[in-house]
């Protein structure tokens, strides 16, 4: 901003000079050079700007203004002296701030250390020592403590401290909580600083002397808005596994076979994923029920058998499994009778064997089987 104004002033000065002499100064300048009046005006304005910036404590920008003045007129002794003095002042301050930063680091004063190192970079944006020190600082050097009250939610606290409900995630993350965690009253949370966002401090709390937030230029704190009651909003998890989403969608569509495939794919890589396990159970039950309703008892018996093995306490599944089993036995047994009447003994025997495979205690099936086998044997003997 003020830099632009200086550039402008300089240009105005140049033009004014041109007007005064009555001829465009460009004409008298060597090719690509500047006439001395232009040079003088620019050097003067940049030197003036440098002084103003130095007074304001903005030493790095002042140094740049001096360098620009010297760019315009490298032979200007005053500009050269100004640059040298500015550089010396900056060098001295850098050493001092680096020492302060290291001392603060040594006594564990992270906030003070951070401020010193940032102060070094403000003077020399390429100072590697300060940069590395800042990089290695642990995240969240500062945070406000908050004791959870009944009704506090992550989103509500984010609104209260940052004026932005979406930052509930940040509080969750800083406190190692799930993004949708319910907060237990009495727990102490850390409300971390978020760069670029002013932290709204409660009431009369005094900032520590070197608090890094809010910055002096940050908007003034506004009164905290009351948190929304917990019942109003429950946050969704920040992110979900896409395979899980696909499985859920298949389940919603009642496409149980696909949902089962999706869940199995997920479980292949993460067998302990509880939600995938739950999805698999739902898919198995849905599939088994559909098969039962479509009288595909063999399939429903197999599907539900798998489910009951996974979830022995699933009462609906156990009941439906028993029903499937009964229907399947009746089917095989009835078909056996039909084949017997049609004198298809081997087929009848196979059906009753199937019954006994499911229910070895099935007396009628065993009786029929034994009788048919005897009959078949005597028939074969007679043939020979």
């Amino acid at each position, binding site marked *: 901003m003020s830099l632009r104004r200086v550039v402008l002033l300089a*240009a105005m000065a140049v033009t004014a000079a041109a007007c005064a002499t009555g001829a465009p100064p460009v004409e008298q300048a060597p090719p690509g050079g500047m006439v001395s009046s232009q040079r003088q005006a620019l050097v003067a304005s940049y030197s003036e700007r440098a002084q103003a910036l130095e007074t304001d404590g903005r030493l790095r920008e002042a140094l740049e203004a001096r360098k620009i003045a010297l*760019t*315009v*007129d490298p032979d200007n002794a005053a500009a050269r002296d100004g640059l040298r003095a500015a550089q010396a002042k900056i060098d001295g301050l850098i050493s001092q701030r680096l020492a302060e930063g290291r001392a603060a680091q040594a006594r564990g004063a992270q906030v003070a250390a951070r401020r010193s190192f*940032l102060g070094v970079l403000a003077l020399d944006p390429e100072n590697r020592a300060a940069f590395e020190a800042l990089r290695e600082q642990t995240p969240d050097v500062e945070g406000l403590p908050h004791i959870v009250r009944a009704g506090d939610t992550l989103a509500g606290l984010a609104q209260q401290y940052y004026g932005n409900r979406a930052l509930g995630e940040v509080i969750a993350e800083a406190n190692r909580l799930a993004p949708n965690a319910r907060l237990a009253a009495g727990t102490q949370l850390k409300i971390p600083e978020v760069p670029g966002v002013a932290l709204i401090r409660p009431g009369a709390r005094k900032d520590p002397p070197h608090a890094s937030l809010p910055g002096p230029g940050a908007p003034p704190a506004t009164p905290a808005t009351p948190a929304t009651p917990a019942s109003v909003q429950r946050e969704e998890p920040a992110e979900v596994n896409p395979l899980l989403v696909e499985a859920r969608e298949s389940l919603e569509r009642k496409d149980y076979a696909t949902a089962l495939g999706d869940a199995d794919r997920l479980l292949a890589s993460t067998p302990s994923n509880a939600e995938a396990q739950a999805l698999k159970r739902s898919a198995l039950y849905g599939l088994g029920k559909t098969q039962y309703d479509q009288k595909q008892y063999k399939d429903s018996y197999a599907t539900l058998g798998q489910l009951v093995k996974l979830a022995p306490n699933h009462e609906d599944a156990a009941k439906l499994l028993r029903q499937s089993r009964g229907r399947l036995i009746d089917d095989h047994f009835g078909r056996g009778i039909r084949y017997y009447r049609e004198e298809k003994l081997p087929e009848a025997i196979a059906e009753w064997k199937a019954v006994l495979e499911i229910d070895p205690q099935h007396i009628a099936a065993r009786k029929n089987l034994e009788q048919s086998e005897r009959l078949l044997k005597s028939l074969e003997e007679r043939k020979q």
Partner: protein
Amino acid sequence: MRGRGLGAAILLGGVVLTAGACATSAPPPPPPPSAAAPKPPPMRQSDDFLVVIPNTRETSASLAAQYLGDQSKAWMIEDYTGAATFPAGQAVVIPKRPWNLTGVSATGYRLVPILVYHNLDRAAKGKLVQSAASFEQQMRYLKSEGYRPITMGEFLEFTRMGRQLPKKAVVLTFDDGYKSFKLFAYPVLKELGFSATLFVYTDYVGAGRNALSWPELKDLQAEGFDVQAHSKTHSDLRRAPGETSAQFERRMQAELALPRDMFKRQLGQMPETLAYPYGWWDTDVLKQVKASGYMAAFTVRRQANPSFVSPLTIHRSQIYADMTLEDFAKNLTVFQEEDLR
């Protein structure tokens, strides 16, 4: 924004004033000495700066092309002077090289927001499937407001003090590797000239019905999109209660090291960076990530990053389907004010 408007007004006022002053007193300008060879404008330069007084009205792009040899360096002139057009006869300072690599100055420090998108579709669904129309609106907003989506590589150089970034640099990332990226995001990004990074988890690639395949990812990579790691199974990497060190290390081997080999085989290069599944990490995970050879790793903590961000906990802001444009814009903070005098 307010400052820029004011600056422009002052500048314009100045131009009118000076032109008016000259018109009354100065004689008409002499004819150019030679029509074929226009006179070069007055110019001085040092190692750091170039000061020029243009003969004609110039733009940041035309000046960058003439004096920095690269039109795409226009942002350097814009960021340094705060202007994009320059009237004839007024001195312009052009920085010849980066003047502030870390973005820290007496009034605060620069931040780079990294945005995270997930799935896109024609219509929004829940929080995580965003409508293609709202995505496009957000991208056009970035363009019209002067934001510059940069590559992940450029951002990482910034975090190593190796590159100065434009004032309004942002990074766009897409998690998981959905097909919808190709369908809905790719055409918009291409049109606007925006770069983006995809974080894919290897179990999903080519597996899910909505997943991009390795050949598709390879094509996207060839077109300049960056493909990076998002674990093998997309499960919480943090050490589970009761998990022994040996179990944890075996699991980390699968989640962190296997994807690197897979990338190498499928895409021809190993991933440099990792996005933590769900954004979750702890100190044990950090150690493993580092040991596995990742240079940087990303959380989903909603905040923008200074140059001196800790490389294994770089933050990203998730964009949700139900965000208004105003909510979206809240994720675009590019400066932290702090008095560092």
